[in-house]
């Protein structure tokens, strides 16, 4: 944000439209077309970034990851594993229907059934859902589940209007979209743009802008060009290679903040390779120059990780140090493991949807060549890549994980628990009894201090046994025109645009 000049426009008051007659339109360059606004049928970021403006959740997670009231004004655990929510009474849906506990019930029951987002709310016990009155509802979990409330703040659990969903049938989410959020759905031209208009009966603070236009522009450099030419006010996901261009442009601002994601090089224990030996894995971890990867491939975006989750996530172990780049140490470790000159070969799979990961695969393959390990890189279509990694085909693979719930459970359980082999997330087929034990304990306890302890220990073990080579934290990188004020990143990558204000052009 640029300070004085823009703020003056802001000072003139909420009704910007009245002043100059021109509606204030915020143009956002989004990297992909949304999939569907039936938010229970998708969980992709391009959709969420728009849907978040349309739907509200019961609980809101602030940009600082605090849980604050959303559509629910207060909540308490009335019994073990049973929560009672008091709902706002002044809320109407975009179709004019009043917001009631029935909509919440409908939404949650439907969510549990959803194949796409079911895993986010699978802790909910559908039998326990009970509508007390129009604005009170009780929801229980089948087991003690620490991060339950955090999961309810996930944008995918935005509250739907039962009537609208039922009436629209197959069209829901495509031409009919009804939420309670600050903006209401206007139009979606597939592949081109989605527009939303300010919802005047919004229960919260009315947004200053009248309209948001989300333009789908897949190519990152074109997004930048749009931003430069003024065709976009906000461009999401600036490519690392384009960062200097934004920074050097005095009319643009680059915003990059860490998010909940992390990148890793998975070392699979599934196949009978030298990777089954800890020393070999450690050697590989030492052989890869993560700093150099961050500098050259990611243009400095991100920090080297010391473990599988990053510091924004609850449960982060801040005692661990990143594994340092040390080729000699790597060679020594290999020798200790019985491979003095390397002399074996490993496959490395990478999905073809990320230029950066493809580059990393090349850096890794060169780095391992240094210590005598031959790497056969397999570049694959994303879906095929996920499939083959899930069945343990690759010896090594490049992937990332975003702990959207900001809780270590989500950031560790799917990835390192032996229950999560394959599809569920543990694609390295890593197995450690102690880790399983601790992850189970962390999952089914609400004692946050104990949980923290458990998770710290898990990270220590993983740091030692390196089923992953920890690469870098991911960052949200957005290019902004200096006209834009108030925009802030949310670590999950979907940003609240209702607070944004715009200078006149």
């Amino acid at each position, binding site marked *: 944000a640029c300070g004085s000049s823009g703020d003056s426009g802001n000072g003139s008051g909420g009704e910007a439209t009245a002043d100059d007659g021109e509606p204030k339109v915020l143009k956002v360059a989004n990297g992909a077309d949304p999939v569907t606004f039936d938010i229970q049928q998708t969980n992709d970021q391009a959709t969420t970034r728009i849907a978040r403006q349309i739907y509200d959740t019961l609980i809101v997670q602030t940009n600082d990851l605090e849980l604050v009231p959303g559509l629910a004004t207060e909540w308490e655990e009335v019994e073990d594993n049973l929560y009672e929510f008091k709902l706002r009474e002044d809320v109407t849906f975009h179709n004019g229907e009043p917001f009631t506990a029935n909509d919440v019930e409908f939404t949650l029951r439907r969510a549990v059934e959803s194949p796409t987002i079911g895993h986010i709310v699978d802790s909910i016990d559908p039998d326990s859902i009970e509508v007390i009155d129009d604005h009170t509802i009780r929801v229980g979990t089948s087991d003690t589940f620490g991060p339950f409330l955090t999961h309810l703040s996930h944008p995918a659990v935005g509250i739907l209007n039962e009537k609208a969903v039922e009436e629209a049938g197959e069209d829901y989410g495509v031409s009919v979209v009804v939420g309670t959020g600050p903006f209401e759905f206007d139009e979606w031209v597939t592949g081109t743009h989605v527009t939303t208009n300010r919802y005047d009966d919004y229960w919260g603070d009315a947004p200053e802008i009248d309209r948001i236009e989300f333009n789908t522009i897949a190519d990152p*450099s074109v997004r930048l060009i749009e931003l430069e030419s003024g065709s976009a006010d906000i461009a999401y996901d600036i490519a690392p290679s*384009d960062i*200097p261009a934004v920074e050097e442009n005095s009319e643009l601002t680059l915003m990059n903040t860490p998010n909940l994601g992390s990148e890793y090089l998975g070392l699979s224990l599934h196949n009978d390779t030298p990777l089954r030996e800890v020393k070999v894995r450690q050697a590989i971890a030492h052989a890869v*120059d993560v700093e*150099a990867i961050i500098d*050259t*491939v990611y243009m400095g975006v991100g920090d080297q990780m010391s473990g599988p989750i990053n510091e924004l996530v609850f449960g982060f172990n801040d005692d661990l140090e990143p594994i340092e780049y040390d080729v000699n140490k790597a060679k020594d470790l290999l020798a200790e493991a019985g491979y003095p000159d390397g002399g074996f070969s490993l496959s490395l799979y990478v999905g073809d949807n990320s230029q950066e990961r493809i*580059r990393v695969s090349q850096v890794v393959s*060169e780095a391992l060549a240094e210590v005598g390990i031959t790497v056969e890189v*397999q570049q694959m279509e994303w879906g095929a890549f996920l499939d083959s990694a899930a069945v343990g085909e690759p010896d090594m693979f490049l992937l990332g994980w975003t702990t959207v719930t900001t809780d270590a459970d989500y950031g560790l359980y799917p990835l390192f628990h032996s229950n999560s082999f394959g599809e569920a997330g543990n694609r390295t087929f890593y197995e450690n009894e102690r880790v399983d034990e601790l992850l189970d304990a962390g999952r089914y306890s609400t004692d946050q201090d104990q949980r923290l302890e458990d998770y710290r220990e898990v990270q220590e073990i993983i740091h030692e046994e390196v089923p992953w080579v920890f690469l870098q934290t991911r960052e949200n990188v957005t290019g902004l025109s200096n006209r834009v004020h108030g925009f802030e990143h949310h670590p999950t990558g979907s940003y609240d645009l209702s607070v944004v204000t715009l200078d006149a052009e």
Partner: protein
Amino acid sequence: MLLTSKKKINQAEEEMLNVPQGSWAEIWYELKRNRRAMFGLFFILFLTIMAIFADQIAPYGMREQNLSNALQFPNTTHWLGTDDLGRDILSRMIYGTRVSLTVGVSAVAVSLIIGGILGVVAGYYKGWIDTLIMRFCDILLSIPSILLAIAIVASLGSNLQNLIIAIGISSIPVFARIIRSGVISVKEQEYIEASEALGANDIRIIFKHILPNILSPIIVQSSMGIASAILSAVGLGFIGLGLEASIAEWGTMLNAGRGYIRTHYYLTLYPGLLIMLTVLSFNLLGDGLRDAIDPKMRER
């Protein structure tokens, strides 16, 4: 030599020297007089040498990285600069010749063999099998070849072999049609009947009489076919469906350089230029061959 003295020969004499279905020596004689075709031929030879001796010629290794030297503009140590991982662009371009020539030639071989068999069978035996084959070709032709190639590569996975198959398949109908029409016109000739009268069987007739007589259009089409196969391969590489990225391939290089187009133009400029020259060379050679074989078909 004869060549230079004959250069100023007038049109009429030229006609006289021209025998429609000349021997190879005559075609070569014609071709040698065509400067553009010779340029094409020499450039192709040059590329072939680069491809074969890439290890000796290239100043750096194909995968040789120097992360601290990334994105250097052309300079004296790296004549054409370095890419985002600090690899030498010139060296990668030289190594890239291998992939492009291999894919170009092999893909044409695939479509030539399969298309050839289909075309010969269709043209020689006619009847329902001809109809069947030609309808199959119509079907393949009505799917844009790049889409077909994308779909095949996407489904088979991208390695050299699959790339060749994908590109090869999409130009099968072109070869099948050309060869079929060649076979049909040659089969009408009385010398085929003469061979039958001597007791030759179908195989002998096809290989000894028909194929040699349709060789010229096949050669011309192959030359042009290599040009378009290289373009297709590069196109696939460009949209990220090419080979694994550490292998130097021109299309992949363009794709990787695309993100830097604003600041580091040379990443896309030089490989692109080389692609264009290569394709141009094959087209020039094809044009020249066609002119040499049949002067009446000039530039058609």
